[in-house]
């Protein structure tokens, strides 16, 4: 789930980098084949987006088991709803909308029983320049471990409202640009910016002990 481990600022992940990058045309062709009943085409679509959809849901729930169920559910619902997909937006945006709606509905139902079940940190986290700088310079508690920071960060994220947590997840963690987030959430860019600002302010308050 290392979308941009070395980026100074969140970079766009709407079009995955590197050669062989899937394009919107590829998606459209795979969608057409899936509609004709070709399950192998849908298998390709799932493999293409499974990590990003899982990551979005995981960062919203901070629970691996819930993220697993919801991510599978998202792809299954998307398959059944594919006939109504008109192509007004990209398949990826449309899929994201389904994932976000499904996750928010789930979070509303489980509002008062949050249980963290965090994924393990990748070993490369210790070498990330941002994290090295953060642990060694910024925080007054230099003895703090990355695992402890991870736990505190997830607890703070869970204190945000769903809409604020979502913009932090999509922008600061996953690196989507404001415009893309506005498209996914069907709101204007100003709303995304203001939610992001407010969410960061709140997070800063929750994590003040670590952010001196």
């Amino acid at each position, binding site marked *: *789930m290392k979308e941009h481990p070395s980026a100074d*600022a969140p970079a766009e992940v709407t079009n995955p980098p590197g050669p062989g990058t899937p394009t919107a045309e590829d998606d459209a062709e795979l969608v057409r084949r899936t509609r004709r009943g070709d399950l192998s085409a849908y298998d390709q679509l799932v493999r293409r987006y499974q990590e990003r959809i899982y990551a979005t849901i995981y960062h919203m729930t901070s629970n691996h088991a819930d993220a697993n169920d919801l991510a*599978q559910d998202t792809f299954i619902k998307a398959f059944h709803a594919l006939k109504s997909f008109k192509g007004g937006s990209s398949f990826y945006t449309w899929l994201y909308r389904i994932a976000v*709606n499904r996750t928010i509905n789930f979070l509303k139902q489980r509002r008062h029983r949050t249980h963290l079940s965090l994924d393990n940190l990748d070993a490369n986290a210790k070498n*990330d320049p941002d994290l090295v700088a953060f642990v060694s310079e910024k925080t007054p508690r230099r003895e703090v471990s990355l695992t402890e*920071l991870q736990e505190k960060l997830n607890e703070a994220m869970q204190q945000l409202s769903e809409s604020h947590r979502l913009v932090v997840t999509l922008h600061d963690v996953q690196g989507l640009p404001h415009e893309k987030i506005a498209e996914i959430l069907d709101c204007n860019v100003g709303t995304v910016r203001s939610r992001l600002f407010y969410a960061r302010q709140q997070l800063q308050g929750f*994590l003040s002990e670590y952010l001196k």
Partner: protein
Amino acid sequence: MDSKPESFESLRRLLTLKRYECPPPGYFDDFAQQVLIGIQHRPESAPTTAERLGWELPWLQRFLEILTAKPALAGAVGVIACGAMVVGILQAERLDSLTVVNDAEIQPALALPAGEAAMVFNQPLEHPALVADTNALAQPSLIPPEELFGRNLPYQQVKFPFPSP
């Protein structure tokens, strides 16, 4: 809003930690397979109408959420909707009564004796009551049609003998 990105620099650095949270190794190897099995064996996972509205008409969902969160607003919207319906019904009844009044004004002219009626038929329609109607496109015509659908209609006089008691 975020015109001072440096003010969140520490937070941004801390948030990069979340990018390193990974599911167990091999988790994604059979994820797609699980999805395909789910598609074939979990028909109940098909999206409901409410769920479809959620991603196809998000504004409608937001509106419903606002109404759910604010019962007073929901009540006000309900009152406005009911009021609009009542006004619509009253307006429709008013238009109907106007039409009835116009019909009543026309009716005496139709009830004239045969001789006078023939005179009326041969006169230009000058009486306002005869031309007044709410439907401008369908002005009443008291002149018997010579043709129906462009064809001359043959007619034949018939006499019905009544048996004497």
